[in-house]
Each structure stands twice: as C-alpha cells, then as structure tokens.
C-alpha cells in the first residue's frame, strides 16, 4: 500500500471494482465515495458505463421529477445503486428509521428514503457504511426499512451484493442469507472485524487483503475522476484529492 493512499481512495477503488462491466449506475445524494467509485468505473469503461449522479446539478440525468429514478429502476434500466443504514444486520436488512421500539424510537434516523423500493428492484445494491462498529452492524435491526432477503413468493429482481465498510468488504450470499468476509482492508485484521461486528458471518480459511489500486487507477482517480467529483462534491474532492490537484 502506497504510504500516501488515502483511506477514501481505497474505498473508491474497491467499490469501483464492483461496477465494472455494468451499463448504468445511479448514485444517491450525499454519497461522495460511491459517486467517485461510479465515476472511476465510468472512466475505465471506455464510455459504456452510464452514471446518474442524483445530487448533481451539472449531471442531472432525469427530467421527469422525483419519481423518475424509481420508475427507471422498475424498467430494469439501473444495474447498481448504493444504500446505507443506521443499522445493518446479518441478513442484510437495513434500518434507516431509528433505534428502539418503533414508533417510540430512542434514537431517530432520517427515514427510509427510497430504500424499501430500490433494494428489491436494483440487481446490484452495494451497502456502504464507513463506520464499522457493533453499534451499526447489529444482529437484528430494530426496524426493517428494507429487507435483505425475501420469501420466494415476493417479486424481487434486486438485492444486496456486498457491504463495504471502513474496515473490510463483506460479500452477501442470498442463498445462505448471510454475509461472508471477502477482504480486509490493509491495516486491519479478521479479529478486529469480528470484534466490531455485531452479526455473525462466514469467514474463509484465508482472508485476503483488500486490493489496493494500481498506479494507473490512482492516476485516473486523482486526475480526471477527481475533477469530475469536484463538480458535485467540491469539499470532498479538495480534501481527498487536493494534493493531486495542486500537483
């Protein structure tokens, strides 16, 4: 790992690797790391990947109002999307509503947004949450904003693909209805992951380290992609790629 690789750069490259080969990725508002990952994947795709950045005035991809993202997903035109959660459990259920016995929540989160819908419709949903603690990654969420798995009688064309945190990558196995540790980020280890994860998950005999971006990817990321990211997330771009910009 390059000494000057920012943690965000590792996460961006990791998420981007999950988007290669897709046709259309949509990114919600306030998602600088998934957004950067989508732009990196686009830069590597030679123009075949379309990215719809929802928080972006300059990239506003839709012209039919707030419903269009959801209609578009139902049409099968969105291959990947990102969701997070105040709580995420071992069945990939996500909770964006609150902690405690709903409706009498002790801690209130902002709300479910479109998760209850998109999670069931977008084929490759990547769960992204930088904070990797037992407070977030719980055995069972207190409120299911959107379910990780569904019974066979539910029409479901989408669902969780992976969970990317600040410490590791979990892959989701829909058949087993549980996560498996896929890789651990440099500087972290499997024991630490176990300690900070509230839910049970599978662990392979050998846990690989999350692959760091190669020089070509880093150059693309710090150059063209950083410029594109700055249109939507200027503060984020300045903080993460600032040095590269000045170079």
């Amino acid at each position, binding site marked *: 790992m390059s000494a000057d690789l920012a943690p965000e750069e590792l996460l961006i490259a990791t998420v981007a690797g999950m988007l290669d080969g897709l046709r259309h990725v949509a990114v919600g*508002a*306030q998602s600088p790391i998934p957004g950067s990952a989508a732009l990196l994947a686009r830069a590597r795709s030679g123009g075949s990947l379309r990215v719809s950045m929802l*928080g972006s*005035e300059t990239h*506003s991809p*839709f*012209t*039919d*109002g*707030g*419903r269009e993202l*959801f209609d578009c997903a*139902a049409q099968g035109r969105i291959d990947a999307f990102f969701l997070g959660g105040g709580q995420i459990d071992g069945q990939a259920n996500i909770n*964006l*509503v*609150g902690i405690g016995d*709903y*409706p*009498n*929540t*002790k801690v*209130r989160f*902002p*709300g*479910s*947004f*479109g*998760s*209850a*819908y*998109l*999670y*069931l*419709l977008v084929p490759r949903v990547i769960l992204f949450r930088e904070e990797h603690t037992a407070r977030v990654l719980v055995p069972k969420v207190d*409120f*299911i*904003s*959107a*379910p990780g798995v*569904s*019974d066979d*009688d*539910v*029409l*479901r064309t989408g669902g969780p693909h992976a969970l990317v945190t600040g410490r590791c990558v979990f892959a989701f196995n829909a058949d087993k209805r549980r996560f498996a540790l896929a890789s651990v980020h440099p500087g972290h280890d499997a024991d630490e992951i176990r300690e900070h994860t509230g839910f049970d998950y599978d662990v392979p005999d050998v846990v690989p380290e999350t692959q760091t971006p190669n020089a070509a990817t880093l150059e693309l990321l710090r150059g063209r992609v950083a410029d594109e990211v700055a249109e939507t997330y200027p503060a984020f771009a300045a903080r993460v790629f600032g040095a590269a910009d000045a170079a």
Partner: protein
Amino acid sequence: MSELFTSVEDLAERIPDGAKVAMAPDYSGCSMVTARALIARGARNLHLIGVPSVGFQGDMLIGAGCVETLETAAVTLDEYGPAPRFMAAAKAGTLKIIDGTCPAIHAGLQAAEKGIPYMPVRGIVGSDLLTHRDDWTTGTDPFGEQGGPLVLVKAIRPDVTLIHAPLADRNGNVWIGVRREMMVMAHAARETFVTAEEIYDGDLLADERLAPGTIPGLYVSALAEAANGAWPVGLFGRYGPDDAHLRDYLDRARTDEGFAGWLDEFVYAPKAAE
C-alpha cells in the same frame, strides 16, 4: 386574474390550521418565506407531506409547534447533518410521524392526480413500513402474469401544495424546470400556493422552451412575488443555501432556548418591525 396575486402573509392565512400541506425538499422549491409567515401567524396541527422528504423547512415548522403530523420518506438536511428540532420532537413523542418511502409518496400523489383511489407500487414488501401503514395494503396482478404481492398505496390528496419557484407570469403560470415533482404536487392538491422569485414579463406557456417546465395557472390558487423566497435554503439554478445562516441555525436549534432565540430574531422580529 388580479385576485391571483397576493402577499406572503395572505398565503399563510389561507393555509388553515390542520391543513394537509405538501412541501418540497431543500434542493427543490421551498417557500421558506411562507413557512416563516405560517410560524408568525401561529399555525397549528399542520399535516406536512414531504415530497418525498423535508429539510430545514420541516425542521423549523416542527420546532415552532406548527406540525401535528409529518408524512415523509425522510427528514434530511443533507450535509448539514441531523435535523435538530425534528430529532427533539421525535424523542419527545410530540410529533406523529407517518414513515413512508419516496416512490410510494410519488405514487400516492400520482393517484390523486389521476383521481384514482390508489396506485400499485413495486417493492416495499418485507419492509416494516408496510406493517405500520393503514393507508397501504397489498394486492395481486389481476392478469396473473407478474408474481408476488403488490403494495397498493392510497391516493395522497394534499389540501395545499406550497412551493417556491424561479419564475411566474401574470397568468399564474409557474416555471419549475426539471423539478416536476412540484407539478405532480400541484395537480394532486386542492389548492396550490406559490411564491415566485421573479415575475416573468410574458406568457410562460407561449415560449416553447419554457412551457415544458411550467405548471399551468389552472392549478395555481394564489401567488406572491418573493425575491429570495427560498432563503436560507437555496433555489435550484438561482442561488445556493446561506451556509453561515444554516450553520448558525443548527447551532442554536440544538436547544429549545436557542431555537426560541432564532425564532425571535428571524421570524417574529421582522414581523414586529413592520
């Protein structure tokens, strides 16, 4: 047509206590100036509908005690973090929250737009949201081709849609550009009240480039010119949020006393000074 134009204060007077009011999120068209007028007139028991979420506007109205019920997919201040008065009200249990999800709110408004009692919506099945909504139920495909239960969302018909727009003309046509959720809100609501940044000198419907982003005056009950009417949040394509003011608001709104001070300074004082 002359009675179409009125003052911001009159708009606030014409939104009765208990009204079901549809509002846009911070990134769309928020009539913050009317929200302050609602607080100033002491509005009570409002049922706010976030289309599909609310931001500072909702937080301020909740903090001022104007809101009984909040129907929304989220309360979000985006990068500014948690909404302090919403969080306080949620914790105190003084706010009835009807938790929804964006596409169901859009679908409910579309049902009202079409005069149909409900709209089928994909997804949602398996979410705890469904178990807490008596205005959602499930059904099946009557043609038997698409498997799985389908969520049926009851039509959402606001009493009032309240928005701020960049342009309006003398005929009451209102330009909202690509923010077409505001057009659905206007179609779905009994009445639509608009503040406009600027009055356009001409007919918005007569310009082939402006007409496609225009809500026809047919749907607009009353209109007030209000430059900077979205302040302190931004207005798409016109101006950004007043970052310093919003950060100051967040700082003060952490406590009841701080929020009361903010109200005195920015809502009640300007009124008293008139």
